[in-house]
């Protein structure tokens, strides 16, 4: 097509809605419906964590820490399985600790009998390890535990320090969306908060924690995971402490020590991949690195 003709045709394109119709369409597009999820609380102090990955040693340490901190409630944002040994050791700890959970992609997959973890990796090496990890957990999780997972809600809402927070696994819109610090810009988070009619939200799924205060005053955090270290060369894992303070809601990411050598020994006894054991013992991820954005990957050893 000659250039002049192309430009004329392009200039004639576009829509012809009136400004009013256009504004209504935009508002409709930006607004999400009420989710009808009841608000739990209000609380003055709660502990929120994600990604147990079968790490019952870290879960036991987390529950002790929550009790020491006198947390009024403990919430888990999902992904109970994968990676570590003995999936069924997690369940009694969750029940005894009174932990309220939401489903992660692992729970959705296990409860529905799916054949993979739905992380959506494309690198063959990542998929190899993801399949090993999911297969082990799938084989060693009791039908009762799987059924219980399927009964857990996909999201919750809690009130802490005068704020209403949405609890989700990946993001408010997708269970397996990765929200990394370097690829979750503030305007994007503002729209998610506005669409979900909350004062902020807490998520997990990536394994890397961060906390953001938005220009609107909303607060958003990725609470990280307790199942494996945060790819930072340290053996501790992490969780979030939410506290009502004089100046408002404080969200703090705290390190958590646990018996990682005991975990590593169990993983070896169960013949889980040595690559996973190395992560527990060194604090550096060795697999599933494909998902990391450039900034997070640059800070990674592998």
């Amino acid at each position, binding site marked *: 097509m000659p250039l002049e003709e192309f430009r004329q045709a392009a200039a004639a394109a576009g829509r012809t809605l009136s400004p009013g119709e256009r504004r209504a369409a935009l508002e409709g597009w930006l607004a999400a419906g009420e989710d009808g999820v009841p608000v739990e609380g209000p609380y003055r102090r709660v502990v929120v964590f994600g990604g147990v990955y079968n790490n019952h040693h870290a879960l036991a340490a987390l529950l002790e820490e929550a009790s020491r901190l006198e947390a009024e409630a403990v919430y888990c944002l999902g992904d109970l399985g994968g990676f570590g040994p003995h999936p069924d050791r997690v369940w009694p700890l969750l029940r005894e600790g009174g932990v309220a959970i939401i489903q992660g992609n692992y729970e959705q997959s296990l409860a529905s009998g799916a054949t993979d973890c739905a992380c959506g990796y494309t690198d063959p090496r990542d998929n190899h390890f993801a399949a090993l990890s999911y297969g082990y957990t799938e084989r060693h999780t009791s039908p009762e535990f799987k059924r219980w997972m399927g009964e857990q809600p996909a999201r919750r809402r809690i009130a802490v320090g005068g704020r209403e927070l949405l609890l989700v696994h990946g993001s408010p819109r997708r269970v397996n969306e990765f929200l990394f610090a370097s690829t979750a810009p503030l305007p*994007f988070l503002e729209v998610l908060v506005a669409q979900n009619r909350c004062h902020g939200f807490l998520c997990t799924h990536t394994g890397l924690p961060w906390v953001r205060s938005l220009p609107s005053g909303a607060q958003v955090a990725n609470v990280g995971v307790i199942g494996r270290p945060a790819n930072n060369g340290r053996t501790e894992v992490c969780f979030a402490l939410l506290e009502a303070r004089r100046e408002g809601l404080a969200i703090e990411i705290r390190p958590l020590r646990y018996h990682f050598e005991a975990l590593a020994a169990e993983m070896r006894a169960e013949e889980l991949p040595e690559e996973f054991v190395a992560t527990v013992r060194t604090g550096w991820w060795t697999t599933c690195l494909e998902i990391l*954005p450039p900034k997070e990957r640059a800070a990674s050893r592998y």
Partner: protein
Amino acid sequence: MPAVALASLDTLWFQVGGTVCNLACTHCFISCSPTNHTHEMLTLAEVEQRLAEAAALGVKEYYFTGGEPFLNPEMEAILAATLRQGPATVLTNGLLLDAGRCRRLAELAAGSEYSLDLRVSLDGFTAEANDPIRGAGSFRKVMAGVANLAAAGLNPVLTVTEVHAENATSEGKARFFALLSGLGLAKPRLKVLPVFHLGAEAERSGAYERWQRLAEGDAPAGSWDHLQCSSCRMVTDQGVWVCPILVNEPAGKIGERLADTLDPFHLDHPACWTCHVHGVSCRT
């Protein structure tokens, strides 16, 4: 005719280099060349205006392409402005990556809380395979550019097309990875894309056949959400297009401002068939 709704505007593309390029690759789906002015370069002021529109719509990431983005004299300022708002990725042919530019890009990356990513195009693991497609001497220049990026601490994604069948095989991928490792990149990254039978590529390998069109029943589980156009838009100097592939099609233009382009798009183009069948996303 099937139509895809915009579920959310996650990815905003900028045709920042217009259709002007310092190469004239024989498989270019928009026939970019030193003399193609179908779309002109975007200015910093135009990009800033679009960034303001994008913030109101909650855009998650920004991509820059052309033409060759680094021919745009304001490209580094454009990246600096973008990285104040969100993560940015530049698709480049790798010819203008001298040591000074790579150092400045590394400084931009380090100075932002958001990620800066680069994608460098190559179409063969030897000059003999690459240069007939991308131009004489381009293989050697791209190798030098990637080495400069590596020396500056940047880890680009090598982007190759299936213009040679062996590029997409596991042996082919292994050779590209080896090439990158040899340039000092310890964590090599690769993306493989199919060719689109448009522009120069339609002349090289033939245009689409009549049957290569999408029909209503083709949507898996009734949803087109796997298509990039369910979450992206493309800005050029002449308005807003539905995606990066259709910028040379007048029907691909769907409005002037981003907020005017939230309506469903009719998948009435054979290139839409390629995206569906090959599972293509231009995103990294």
